[in-house]
């Protein structure tokens, strides 16, 4: 194997340059702070990575990690309230009345509609009373009036992350705000936000063919591990999450030892003591215990057919181990060879040569990478072609990978591109902050961002065949298809329909 020295040494140089600019400090409470000096402009970006995602949602509370992420924008004991002591009492009353309503609502036998109505009225009144103390959206308003840009957050199955960019003269203001919302979030306006998140679910899954396909596919592919649950939660569970449950979730998972924060830009090691003052004040807590569930080996091929008034789609997946597996980089190689651009095998075969698909790709780390996950294939058939044709064509390409070595050129392209992608990713503060936090959290050392290339460089043709033969077998396969079915002729428009009560779980994926 030839080693392309130039690109290799470029990566070495970058690592050396970062070694000089990066400072890592683990605070006494366990929180890890990373700062990286990149003084091009008087701005900084930060990335807070909390090592908890919707895979950690307790049973019956799917969607709670994501729900909590929304809460993290609702303010703190100081921000977003006119009088916290009074609000705290009012919020306790909200929980008390909600619990009373909820226990009546959940009765399977003997639910009393009159009583339910009464309890709902009491809850509404308590919510109204608590709202009097709220200064809505004050947290984001302070950030944005101070120039925060790209204020956002994401909850995945593996982790929850918060980020924005700001002029660098607001570094201390940011440290105050971020540490305050980690330590002292207040679940204000929780039940209205829950309605907002239910709309988010309707948008992403219930009213979106690809979202629905993905949800049904994952639910079939996993029988034990929570990767089989939608991150946003099942509608019935999401619609019954309480602020009390969210607070318990926060207490358990938002402990400093479970959090890595990276700050990149116009920031110096001299700023560390100021940052430490804010983030060091977050109370320590026990590190959450690791998950016990491991997805058992799949024993049967599974298929899911969705018949909908939507053009056909195809999704297929095979179980693979987590990112800690020694073959992790081999899966990256397979992904690259199957899918990266117009030289990729699936493009050349399904799109260009056979002309049966508008798009076809294989990708790893689905739906997450922290736990054993799937190597998946997704294809969009051309007009007049079927999902079954996608399955056959993809399986031919898989067979080829199992029986014939990839070419030298293919393997080399993968390695060259991996180096280039790494370097191209070092061009902006937000991207660097995300990468440093990710590698620090996952490997305990941000340098893995660069050192992973050693694993990539070590991938051989034999590795690819070995791994392909290991996972691409029928008993390890789940596939899902959308087949077109004309919509029913709509009945004459009804003038009015009883609308479900505000707390009624709305229908989930059923249609």
């Amino acid at each position, binding site marked *: 194997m030839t080693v392309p020295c130039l690109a290799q040494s470029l990566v070495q140089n970058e690592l050396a340059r970062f070694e000089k600019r990066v400072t890592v400090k683990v605070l006494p409470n366990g929180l890890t702070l990373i700062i990286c000096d990149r003084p*091009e402009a008087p701005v900084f970006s930060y990335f807070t990575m909390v090592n908890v995602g919707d895979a950690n949602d307790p049973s019956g509370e799917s969607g709670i990690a994501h729900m909590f992420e929304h809460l993290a924008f609702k303010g703190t004991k100081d921000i977003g309230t006119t009088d916290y002591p009074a609000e705290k009492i009012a919020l306790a009353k909200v929980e008390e009345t909600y619990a009373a309503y909820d226990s009546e609502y959940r009765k399977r036998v003997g639910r009393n509609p009159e009583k339910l109505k009464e309890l709902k009225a009491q809850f509404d009144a308590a919510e109204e009373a608590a709202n009097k103390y709220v200064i809505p*959206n004050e947290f984001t308003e302070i950030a944005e009036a101070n120039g925060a840009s790209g204020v956002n957050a994401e909850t995945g199955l593996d982790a929850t992350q918060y980020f924005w960019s700001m002029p660098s003269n607001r570094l201390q203001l940011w440290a105050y705000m971020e540490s305050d919302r980690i330590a002292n979030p207040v679940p204000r306006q929780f039940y209205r936000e*829950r309605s907002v998140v239910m709309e988010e679910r309707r948008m992403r899954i219930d009213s979106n063919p690809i979202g629905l396909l993905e949800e049904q596919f994952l639910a079939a592919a996993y029988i034990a591990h929570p990767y089989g649950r939608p991150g946003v939660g099942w509608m019935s569970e999401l619609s019954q999450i309480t602020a009390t449950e969210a607070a318990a979730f926060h207490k358990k998972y938002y402990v400093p030892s479970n959090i890595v924060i990276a700050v990149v830009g116009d920031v110096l090691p001299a700023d560390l003591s100021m940052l430490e003052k804010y983030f060091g004040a977050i109370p320590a807590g026990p590190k959450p215990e690791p998950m016990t569930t491991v997805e058992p080996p799949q024993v049967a091929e599974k298929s899911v057919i969705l018949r909908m008034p939507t053009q056909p789609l195809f999704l297929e997946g095979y179980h693979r181990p987590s990112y800690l597996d020694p073959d992790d980089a081999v899966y990256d190689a397979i992904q690259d060879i199957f899918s990266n651009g117009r030289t990729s095998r699936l493009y050349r075969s399904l799109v260009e040569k056979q002309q049966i698909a508008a798009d076809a790709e294989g990708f790893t780390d689905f739906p997450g990478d922290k736990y054993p996950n799937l190597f998946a294939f997704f294809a*969009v058939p051309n*007009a007049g072609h079927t999902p079954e044709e996608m399955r056959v064509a993809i399986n031919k390409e898989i067979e080829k990978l199992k029986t014939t070595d990839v070419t030298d050129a293919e393997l080399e392209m993968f390695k060259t591109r991996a180096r280039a992608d790494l370097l191209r990713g070092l061009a902006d503060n937000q991207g660097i902050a995300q990468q440093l936090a990710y590698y620090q959290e996952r490997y305990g050392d941000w340098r893995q961002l660069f050192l992973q290339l050693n694993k990539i460089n070590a991938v051989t043709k034999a590795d690819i065949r070995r791994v392909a033969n290991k996972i691409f077998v029928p008993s390890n396969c789940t596939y899902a298809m959308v087949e077109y079915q004309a919509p029913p002729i709509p009945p004459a428009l009804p003038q009015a329909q009883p609308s479900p009560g505000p707390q009624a779980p709305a229908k989930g994926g059923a249609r």
Partner: protein
Amino acid sequence: MKQSRTASLFAAALLCASVACPLFAQVTTVTIPPDIRKLQPPAPWEKIPVPPLHAFHPEQPTRIELKNGLVILLEPDHELPFINGSINIRGGSRDVPADKTGLIDLYSQAWRTSGTATQSGDQLDDLLASKAANVETYGDIDSTSVAWSCFTKDEDQVFGIAVDLLEHPAFNEQKLRLAQQQEIAGIVRRNDTAQGIAAREAAVLVYGKDSPYARQPEIATVMGITLDDLKAWHAKTVVPNNIIVAVEGDFDPAAMEKSLRAAFGGLPRGPAWPKPSGEFAGPKPGIYFVNKTDIDQSNIWILGLGTTRRNPDFYALTVMNEIFSGGFGSRLVQDVRTKQGLAYAVFGNYGASFDHPGIFYTIAMTKSATTVKTTQAMLKEIHELKTEPFTASELASAKDQLLNSFIFHYDSKDKVLARATELEFYGYPADYLTKYEAGIKAVTLADLQRVADKYIDPSRLAILVVGNQASFGTPLTALNLGPVTPLDITIPMPAAMRRQMGQQGAQ
């Protein structure tokens, strides 16, 4: 260019892949009633020092105009060993005849995939992939482009390919067929999501069915496009006085200038590309409806005609936008999302494009049963732009937001170059950003009231709903805004194709 149709703008926002993006709109304004805190000691964050921001004057790109009219912008940046460049050409999809709608999509795909006189597209793919380099061609509503990106050491070869594509393209029948097939795959899928339907029909309502800003490629127009059409478009647009070349990255400016002069200096000047024109009447007021039976959430779009950035009122309208819909604290989001919990996705904007009127839109997605309630809440917020006086606190917060985050327009070299290229393309002065900052600072409460009075006219708005009528509960007629006009979104399809697709006929 960056200019994009509203449709693609929202597609990007809505296709956000991760589970949670709590803020669709990413800017916000403060609407804390000023008297709430006045009587209290300063809040903790108000005591935190905010030192003056370090001085920052990023170097502007070097501008070179060749004798043949081609403009070069150079922005050296030695942080990483890459060079990125683009050749931007005036003329885009709005400039093709109606019966060739879709031409730019096919052209911009087949241009690159066909390759050049000496190297096929597939050969280029292999060569570039082996160097982790890219040369790609793009098409937009008002431009086409060739862009390249490579390691510094590969610049000569990769830039050579980009120039070869520009000067010696080899449009190929097979690659045109492939592009047509992909385009048609998109057309038959265009009614699969409510957002896609809404974005498309919104443009039709605002600009008119036949407008170059709204019309859609159809199977018939796409199949009618020939290789000669692609070649003719290329010959017509690749004229140096309609081209801007922008390069950023790890290069020596003198050497780069020399190389660009050698590559482009010999192109003969041609006719100047005409300025865009057109009539913009705005939508016909009323309620428009698309029934989609397989969803449980409505897309509600309230639509009017926007303006251009050349309008002297643009600055006041920008501040008004912040207050109306700029983010979490804005009136619209505060009410529809935070207070009422009716929607996750809610946004609005009095749109201003560089060279034609944008769209004034207010959008929300809400469960079927609250369609009418949400529409009413949205209309109320629009109406209150005229009736609820803007406060000094709203004005101050909107300006803080716009001005304190202003640096993010130009905090990296690639952004500096992108802004400059955009201004050059649309013929705006190079100091536009400075003027913009001053313009925002100068906006007064009286300006806000004046522009709200002048530009916001609820009687001239169209309401578009894509939803599942059977679950609305309250019918759309309850809005009391006249009859509901159903929109026909049937995809025109040749009979033979409909037969071939069997049951897959698009509804």
